[in-house]
């Protein structure tokens, strides 16, 4: 359903994307022939031309995975997942890649209120929330129309009131989710291993060590250092160069 809506929304763009499709096919055949480096180059050139899609990042990640480059593989799986959060193929391959990762951290059990809030907030991506909001508000506006312009006033009133409340809530959720993503961008550790410091600067004490492919969340920034938080709640500073943002 959502897919259909997305494809309808991007139909116009899709029609103009013949050049990308052609390059994509070429890269795919390179992948199939086992020329993963060539495939990576071709996929990268599409990204550099300013276009993206979940399939593109997914294929790019697969090529990196085949070459044994774990960090770029995980980064691109995450990028693909960001565009298509429910895609089973992406989830499967990401899980495989994550098993090759050295770092294993147990996620903190979230508190009940947070779990409830994030359960709703993160149930849909910002765009999906936005589409839900628009559909609800559209039906609500039809209800308003019914109320004012026809004799079915009761149905119109109920539709208008309930759906506009739900629709505005969805729109609020869309912006909340977006703000959440912007405030806590997820990053992937790109260097083979990196010492997490207690503060921004090389003189700071080493706290622990992270390895390639681990996902962290940015909490703060200072000069060329990023303050990060792991899923198990550990906090520390890493040089910016050792991290790359998913979105």
């Amino acid at each position, binding site marked *: 359903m959502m897919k259909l809506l*997305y*494809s309808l*929304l*991007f139909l116009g*763009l*899709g029609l103009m*994307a013949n050049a*990308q*499709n052609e390059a994509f*096919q070429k890269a*795919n055949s390179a*992948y*199939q022939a086992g020329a993963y*480096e060539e495939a990576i180059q071709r996929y990268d050139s599409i*990204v550099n031309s*300013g*276009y*993206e*899609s*979940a*399939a*593109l990042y*997914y*294929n790019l990640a*697969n090529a990196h*995975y*085949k*070459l*044994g480059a774990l960090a770029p593989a995980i980064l691109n799986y995450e990028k693909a997942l960001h565009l298509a959060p429910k895609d089973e*193929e992406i989830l*499967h*391959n990401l*899980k*495989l890649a994550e*098993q090759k990762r050295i770092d*294993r951290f147990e996620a903190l059990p979230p508190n009940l209120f947070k779990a409830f809030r994030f359960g709703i907030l993160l149930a849909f991506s*910002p*765009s999906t*929330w*936005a*589409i839900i*909001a*628009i559909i609800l*508000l*559209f039906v*609500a*506006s*039809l209800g*308003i*129309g019914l*109320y*004012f*312009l026809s004799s079915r006033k009761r149905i119109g009133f109920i539709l*208008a009131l309930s759906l*506009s409340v739900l*629709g505005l809530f969805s*729109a609020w959720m*869309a*912006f909340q989710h*977006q703000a959440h993503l912007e405030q806590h961008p997820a990053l992937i550790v790109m260097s083979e291993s990196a010492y997490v410091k207690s503060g921004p600067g090389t003189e700071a004490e080493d706290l622990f060590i992270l390895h390639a492919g681990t996902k962290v969340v940015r909490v703060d920034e200072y000069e060329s250092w990023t303050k990060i938080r792991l899923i198990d709640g550990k906090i520390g500073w890493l040089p910016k160069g050792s991290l790359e943002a998913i979105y």
Partner: protein
Amino acid sequence: MKYFLSIVSFLLLGSTSLAQVSFKASVNQKEVGLGERFVVEFKVNQQGEDFKAPPFHGLQVLSGPNTSVSTFMDNTGTRFNLTYSYMLRASKLGEYTIDPAFIKVEGRTYRTEPITIKVVEKKSQAQEGPKDVFLKAYVSDRKVYQGEPFYANYRLYFRNEVFQHSFQEEPDFTGFYKEFIEQNRIETQEEYVNGNRYYSADLRKMVLIPQQTGKMEIGSIQMTIPVRVPSRQRDIFGFRVNRTENRDLSATFPTIEVLPLPSKGRPTNFSGAVGQFSLQAEISEDEIDTDGSLSLRVKIEGTGNIKLAELPKIEFPNAFEVFDPEIKENSSVGTYGMRGSKTIEYLLVPRYGGEYKIDPIEFSYFDPKQEKYIRLQSDAFSIKVNGGTLAPQEKQSGIMSPKESEQVDFINKEILFIKTKANWHKIGEQFLGSALFWSLFSLPFLIALGSLFFWYRKRKESEQGDLLKVQRAAKVARKRLSKAQKALKENQPEVFYSELETAILGYFEDKLKLSKSNLTKDELEAQLQARNVDASLIGKVMKLLQQSELARFTGLKAEAARNDYEETAQVLTEIEKQL
């Protein structure tokens, strides 16, 4: 003594000491050859203390400080000399300055003048003709791949008796893994160089494995070796007297070009091995009981950098407990490079019954002769474990950790294939916040506002329409009643009522498009009822008609007439509105 220079003396003004203190620095050669040894001396003619030698920047101190004291007498009295001497060597061309040295004599500090030394290209050995001793370094190959072992050695050529070298320096082989070939004794053989007969001996043999790529300088060997040379002097029997001379020798290894391993076609599980290898893998048993154990042995054998090669990784089914493997290594080096074998042996203990398989073991290496990667693969193994329980598929048992049980789901460890269809959009373009989003988002509000506006306009219109109708109806009614009104004003009630009746009937005739002859009171009532006019209004109309009929026969009161006029006007206005 002619090399002595820069003698500095310090006059001790007012000193009671008879002898002047002199503290001098000297070198035995002002111009020295590269790698040649020379001596620096600091001489003081009084008993000194706290001698501070200068830092010999850029020069290598081979020995020192060596102190010597000498006392002798002559006409002027007793002379005393204290000498600090250093043996130095320069390893680079250029000018060097030996900074002042300091010493304390009777509480005063004295210093020497700085000395400048020039290091020049090695001065040719005094002899004409062939050298009597020299050193040469060899490599078996000047162009090798990264990781490809090659043989290197350096050889001493000599014509006269030589002794154990007194000083030797080898390069540190940065960028290479090196392994010396052990020699129990150094063998000497005869060799002709440029038609001259020499004895030669390989002082050092080694195998080098380059770890970096590019043009690699291995470096040079420096060595000082005592040689017995015949001198011009003859002994009392007429034989030549042999002298022993120290010779500084050096030899540089040729530059090696190290090629990087091609990235094209490099297998993902490339072991780093370069050479020619073979792979053997065997399993001790292929059918065992759950209480038994079996071993898997993998052996890599061949010529090449076997010591640096990684053993293949083996994925065992979860149903086996794998103990730390035993790794055996066996390698030798020689002029052929390096050869040997590496064996890894796993001990497996089954935990569950069933049939399991171990994927073929793969080992890949680079063959520098064929210049391509070679991939070796063993057979796949299948093991039947008799008895015992079957491996749990889902929930973890006491033995398996949750992690392992998760991995059970991923028996197929290959990633899924790529996608072939893509929906493109510009990077950073997002539906939320886009122009499309805002326009779609505002559409429902526009629809709501639009319907509100339509509703409002319609209501206004209908209100205005009503007002117009009322006004028009009133006008019509008044027009019809104008004659009756006139009669009312003239106080002629009879005329008034007849006019009133005419006006009412005339109004309905026009309104309902009926002919006058047909219109009776009853008929009018039926017509009005058919047109859904309010029942009370119909009643009022009927009552007015009745009254006007009645009034013509009964006595008339101006007061009642006024009321009837007003009511008629009202009723007609109402009727006009409804019809």
